[in-house]
């Protein structure tokens, strides 16, 4: 499944893709991630979506480069995470600001390690600026 994007408000967009052991660079510059939805219903084991705040210049060595986000998606399940991040308790939330870029992949192990992608398709939608 190729990466496809559609805008909905200003510069915000939905980015749909199949996530696997190929690192996808969704942004080569600073970006904001407002939320992520992951569908792991096609698999019988947990999948782990990983996000790196980096760009193609910095690169990602899957299994070695330390991810900034690790998200376990249960076998046969889905997950939706909105990122409501604010400067103070009563400020308007802004989303997760990545200062360098946005790279994403999906493997079958948590933490930093893991280079094996899921057996069946894991689909993700990221809401970004």
């Amino acid at each position, binding site marked *: 499944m190729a990466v496809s994007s559609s805008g909905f408000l200003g510069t915000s967009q939905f980015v749909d893709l199949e996530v696997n052991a190929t690192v996808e660079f969704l942004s080569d510059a600073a970006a904001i991630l407002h939320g992520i939805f992951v569908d792991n219903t096609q698999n019988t084991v947990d999948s*782990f979506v990983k996000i790196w*705040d980096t760009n193609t210049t910095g690169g990602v060595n899957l299994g070695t480069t*330390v*991810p*900034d*986000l*690790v*998200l*376990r998606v*249960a076998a046969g399940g889905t*997950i*939706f*995470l*909105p*990122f*409501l*991040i*604010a*400067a*103070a*308790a009563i400020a308007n*939330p802004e989303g*997760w*600001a990545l200062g360098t870029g946005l790279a994403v992949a999906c493997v079958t*192990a*948590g*933490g*930093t*390690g893991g280079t094996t992608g899921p057996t069946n398709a894991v689909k993700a939608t990221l809401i970004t600026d």
Partner: protein
Amino acid sequence: MSTPTITKADFLLGGDLKGTTIRDADVDESPELDVMAGPCRLTHIRAGNVDSAADAAMYLKLYDDLNPTVGTSVPDYVFEIPLNKIVDIPLGAGIVFVNGLSFACVTVGGTVGTTGPVATKLITANFTLLPGVS
């Protein structure tokens, strides 16, 4: 190793369903272990990195493990808590920890990292949990 600083409060969701709010006022490299004494479902995370001491982004790590070794055990979830920010993550029906929930906070993401926030910096985290996995 710091003294555990978590506080718990139970609340009723309706009928006989009871939830628990756990607050750790000083999340650091010393893991809080199996905070619900068994399998549980996490429905909400709220974490803050807004102490005045100069520092950097921190990484909140959640383990489906009764006794993880921070820096070695593979975390199941890693969330960056940016400097001077409060992170609020509602999880809807929740995410299940089939063994139990343990957590810690260190200065790097991924698996490695054994250094927690500086002594004068407080990372706070609040979790809303339900007992069991269903």
